[in-house]
């Protein structure tokens, strides 16, 4: 049996700060994806939802919430929560269901409605919750992004100009993306004039939180052959966790694992490695990559974690223009989180939507010529991460 599944259709609700119920965004995206796939909602046998933690009970059981909103029709449901990797885990559940023969057609949906500003933990005195502890100490998400940015500066010679160049590049990519929240061609001067958030990162280096929804219709290869001649396939999907002793300084922990008794491991590089292995594809075969630019500096780390260049070479790769559309390996052609802001359960699916549009040659002005293989990568708190390799 082939280990690949087909992506029959994708759809999104534009990112923004719309203030509506997350279910609306999810259903909008789902209907768009079903239409794109050319299949009816009542043909769907499995609904896999990515949960949101900020919208009450309907968010915790998102798969059922979306199924009910689309109209109960008896499909089986699943809900996945994996922080920023929730969308990929929902995708993985649907893929597994198909590959095990449990269904032929599945719908994967993620959507979120976000509050303004920082995403904060539950209240009270709760020192057993590391997320509570770090907020109590005043250590928020941008602090963690800034730690890595500062290391790039002191170890690899990165400059604030490099981080700014990532933002300006992604802004240019996303300027014509109808689903992006920010479609402004930010200039270097505007980025550098924005307020300092977590030195060396300024407001326009750090991604916002957004409302949005994304959906993917997955099908078995047999089903796809009967319905489409051009469906891209998922060739690899990684949702690996860290290995002890993880050396990542990562949200929400205030200390790393101790490597005193056992060797230390790097988590982030292991995320894509698994997807490459599963797909039997290497970084040199990629046409494009969608990576999690929680901060502009984080994108540079991903160049290295994905093997687009050697450690310490990301600034050189950026400066060469290779990661712009038209370059050797365009990164964040959608505009990335810089243009979208983060809608947590929808974001990993949005990355997959972009890969699909690129591989089908439907990305409009941001099209990567002749795109054949793309990878998405993301990483979130509590040891989550994902990478998806899509090929045509």
């Amino acid at each position, binding site marked *: 049996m082939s280990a690949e599944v087909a992506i029959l259709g994708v759809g999104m609700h534009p990112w923004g700060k719309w203030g509506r119920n997350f279910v609306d965004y999810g259903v909008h995206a789902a209907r768009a994806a079903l239409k794109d796939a050319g299949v009816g909602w009542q043909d769907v046998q499995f609904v896999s939802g990515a949960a949101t933690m900020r919208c009450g009970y309907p968010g915790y059981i998102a798969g059922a919430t979306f199924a009910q909103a689309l109209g109960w029709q008896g499909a089986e449901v699943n809900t996945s929560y994996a922080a920023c990797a929730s969308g990929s885990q929902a995708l993985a559940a649907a893929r597994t269901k198909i590959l095990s023969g449990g269904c032929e057609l599945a719908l994967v949906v993620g959507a979120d409605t976000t509050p303004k500003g920082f995403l904060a933990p539950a209240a009270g005195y709760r020192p057993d919750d590391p997320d509570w502890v770090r907020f*109590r*100490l*005043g250590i*928020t998400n941008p602090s963690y992004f*800034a730690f890595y940015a*500062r290391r790039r500066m002191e170890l690899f010679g990165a400059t604030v100009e490099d981080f700014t160049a990532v933002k300006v590049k992604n802004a240019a990519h996303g300027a014509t993306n109808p689903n992006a929240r920010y479609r402004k061609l930010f200039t270097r001067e505007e980025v550098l004039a924005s307020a300092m958030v977590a030195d060396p990162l300024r407001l326009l280096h750090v991604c916002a939180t957004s409302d949005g929804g994304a959906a993917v219709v997955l099908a078995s290869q047999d089903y796809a052959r009967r319905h489409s001649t051009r469906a891209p396939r998922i060739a690899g999907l990684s949702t690996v966790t860290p290995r*002890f*002793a993880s050396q990542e*300084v990562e949200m929400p922990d205030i200390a790393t694992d*101790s490597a005193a008794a056992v060797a230390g491991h790097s988590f982030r590089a292991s995320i894509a490695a698994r997807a490459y292995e599963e797909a039997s594809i290497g970084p040199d075969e990629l046409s494009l990559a969608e990576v999690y630019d929680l901060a502009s500096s984080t994108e540079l780390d991903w160049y290295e974690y994905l093997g687009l260049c050697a450690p310490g070479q990301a600034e050189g790769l950026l400066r060469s223009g290779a990661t712009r559309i038209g370059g050797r390996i365009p990164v964040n052609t959608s505009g990335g989180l810089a243009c979208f802001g983060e809608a947590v359960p929808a974001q990993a699916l949005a990355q997959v939507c972009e890969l699909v549009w690129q591989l089908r040659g439907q990305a409009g002005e941001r099209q990567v010529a002749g795109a054949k293989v793309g990878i998405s990568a993301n990483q979130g708190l509590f040891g989550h991460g994902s990478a998806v390799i899509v090929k045509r």
Partner: protein
Amino acid sequence: MGERAPKAAIEGWYTLEAQPHLLGSRCRRCGTYYFPPLKSFCRNPACEGSEFEEVRLSRTGRIWSYTNACYQPPAPYVSPEPFVPFAIAAVELETERMIVLGQVVQGVEVAQLRIGMPMELVLERLYTEGGEERVVWKWKPLEPAT
């Protein structure tokens, strides 16, 4: 009457001496250190240990990285009015081979820090509630800031 002993913002995680230590734990079977202290089951996947000794972690280390908080964090952070920005350091402890995050003492700015700089652990006010000061561990440069 002398000064009242400082009260900890998070109880049981550090000593309240003039030269304070973080209170970690160490697995009696494999020797792995933990902070915050772990007292239930060892997280080393090759170890089935469930007994721990309380250990005072090294009170000095070297900066792994650093930044600051220019915006007021949300609750449960308790902010002075008005908010005062502070630096933050991730400090690597050599013996324990772990990196511990913390605020940097007031008055020390990002421009005075660099990777590799030796730091020591001190106690400083995290917040005042009901007229009572609560202290937490913070990092302070060991050598005069440049």
